[in-house]
């Protein structure tokens, strides 16, 4: 990446009384870059995003790490400074739009609130800008819809309202947690197009949390794969899909119904990764070991380090890494 690093997360650990949902997580995002985070449901993606926003639930504690955002350590800022940063410089689109929209306020109110707070717009100017924003996210008849309450909108419309709120103040970093899951493909393409345009026009950095691998290949510059709170693989999207390395990533790609286009449920089940992420709890070694098809005894004694199998690539699996080394050796390279 030629661009300057905007966000740098180092060794971030988030702890609840009973579990550590984010463990020693490190990654960087540059200005104008799109970083995708993919991973098993429950692997800590949303909590990572909430940690960046300093919006973790009360029971959660950050027990280690730093989060540098354009020269400031976010974990050291007082509540006031973080509040003025949030919504303005860092914004987030939440995973569940219905719970993050206020049910008793019209959507217009919710969009104009942040415009008036951060940009000091008058009520009238804020309303005009809000209509523009609704139009930007392709809500039909925005001048009418602006006075609707969240329950009057379809699931996908609520998600687009969340996007309008998030981009209202032209943030430098936008964290989008499953921004298009409620959207059909045509609107999904339009929303991603929109996010990408904002990224280019504002040199906004984008963290895209998604489980749609089609979206990742198309829109991301870099991909982090998480499992049970840890980064298990990182790669450029083309490399990741052409040659997934970590056994979890391989399992994930194999589970996709897109893999074989004319495969039907009457032909047989989809390929699952047997077991569940819950099995990672209490595991001293690799969190994926209980489900891994190529597990060795050594995997269970210590947490694998992130190894560098190729340029721009990290993988936390010594077994795969050693295999790769053997291939390289066999080819006499």
């Amino acid at each position, binding site marked *: 990446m030629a661009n300057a690093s905007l966000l740098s997360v180092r060794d971030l650990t988030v702890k609840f009384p009973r579990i550590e949902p984010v463990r020693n997580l490190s990654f960087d995002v540059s200005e104008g870059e799109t970083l995708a985070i993919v991973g098993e*449901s*429950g692997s800590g993606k949303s909590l990572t995003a909430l940690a960046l926003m300093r919006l973790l639930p009360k029971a959660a504690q950050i027990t280690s790490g730093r989060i540098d955002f354009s020269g400031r350590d976010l974990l050291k800022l007082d509540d006031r400074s973080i509040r003025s940063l949030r919504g303005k410089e860092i914004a987030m689109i939440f995973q569940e739009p219905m719970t993050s929209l206020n049910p008793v306020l019209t959507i217009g109110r919710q969009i104009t609130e942040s415009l008036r707070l951060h940009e000091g717009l008058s009520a009238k100017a804020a309303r005009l800008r809000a209509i523009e924003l609704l139009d930007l996210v392709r809500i039909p008849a925005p001048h009418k819809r602006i006075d609707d309450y969240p329950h009057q909108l379809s699931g996908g419309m609520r998600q687009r309202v969340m996007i309008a709120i998030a981009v209202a103040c032209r943030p430098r970093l936008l964290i989008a947690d499953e921004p298009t899951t409620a959207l059909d493909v045509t609107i999904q393409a339009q929303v991603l197009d929109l996010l990408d345009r904002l990224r280019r026009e504002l040199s906004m950095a984008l963290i895209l949390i998604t489980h749609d691998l089609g979206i990742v290949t198309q829109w991301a510059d870099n991909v982090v794969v998480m499992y049970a709170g840890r980064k298990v693989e990182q790669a450029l999207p083309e490399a990741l899909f052409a040659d997934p390395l970590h056994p979890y990533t391989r399992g994930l790609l194999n589970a996709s119904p897109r893999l074989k286009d*004319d495969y039907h449920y009457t032909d047989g089940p989809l390929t699952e990764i047997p077991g569940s992420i819950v099995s990672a709890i209490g595991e001293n070694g690799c969190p994926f070991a209980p489900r891994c098809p190529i597990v060795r005894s050594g995997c269970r004694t210590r947490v694998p380090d992130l190894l560098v199998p190729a340029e721009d690539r990290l993988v936390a699996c010594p077994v795969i890494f050693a295999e790769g080394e053997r291939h390289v050796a066999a080819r006499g390279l």
Partner: protein
Amino acid sequence: MSLLAVSDLHTHYAGPSGTLRAVDDVSLTVEDGETVGLVGESGCGKSTLGKTITRLVAPTKGSIVFKQEDITRISERSLRPVRRRLQMIFQDPFGSLNPRQNIRDILTAPLVVHGYGNRAERAKRVEALIDRVGLPRTALSRYPHEFSGGQRQRIGIARALILDPELVVCDEPVSALDLSIQAQILNLLSSMKKDLGLSYLFISHDLSVVRYFTDRVLVMYLGRIVESADNRTLWAQPKHPYTRALMDAVPDPSRRRQAAPISGDLPSPQNIPSGCRFHPRCPLATDICRTVDPALTSFGPTHQVACHHADAA
């Protein structure tokens, strides 16, 4: 006889800025053991249709016949035994789970309401379901906010299946899930279907999931079914220009930053275009499309299309 037969169904919402025709004359059937997919643009009325069929939203006009009983207007009380057989998995798992109840209570409540077994039998049923959807038993004493999005969706699925329904309206049941859990849930839904003879009305915007999981597909646009075909036919010969646009919009991993395939102003269900409701965005539109509303017309035994130019496909 079909398990479910919906005829000429309309669901309108009244609002300050006029009537909104969310479901605007829909007829469909679901046969015993069949999985019918429902796809279409955000806001086209899929959830409203699902909620009307399960009587969570009142229909404005038309009829809903489930197991040969007309349930369109029957009372809440008469609905109770129907509800047991006709369940819904909701699109927004968090909004539909009571935050103050733990998972055990959430799953036990429907059993109590429907007078299922004694306390011990209810507990056993709850545990069987939580195992089946792949959550640990310890989840039972926890509250909805302690779960990730995907875990909540499994709880919603467990709740919908706990009464042993015959037809389940699944509203985007896997769109919040990563691929590996999506595969587990789809396999779970399909083995439940095989074991229990379930039928599904399966709402999803993910065409690869719909292609894998359904027997027949309905394509909805602005409150109306515009194409209906068995799974294979639809993918081999999509005829409605909107269906084809949908298929073209599926992210293609070999293309970077692909542009949106259809643009044009998104129409509003408060102001449905004249003639064919797709005409303002349709590449094939001619004069007749602007004035005459096309009816669903058969193109073969299992294929119906509402388009004046379906032959052009």
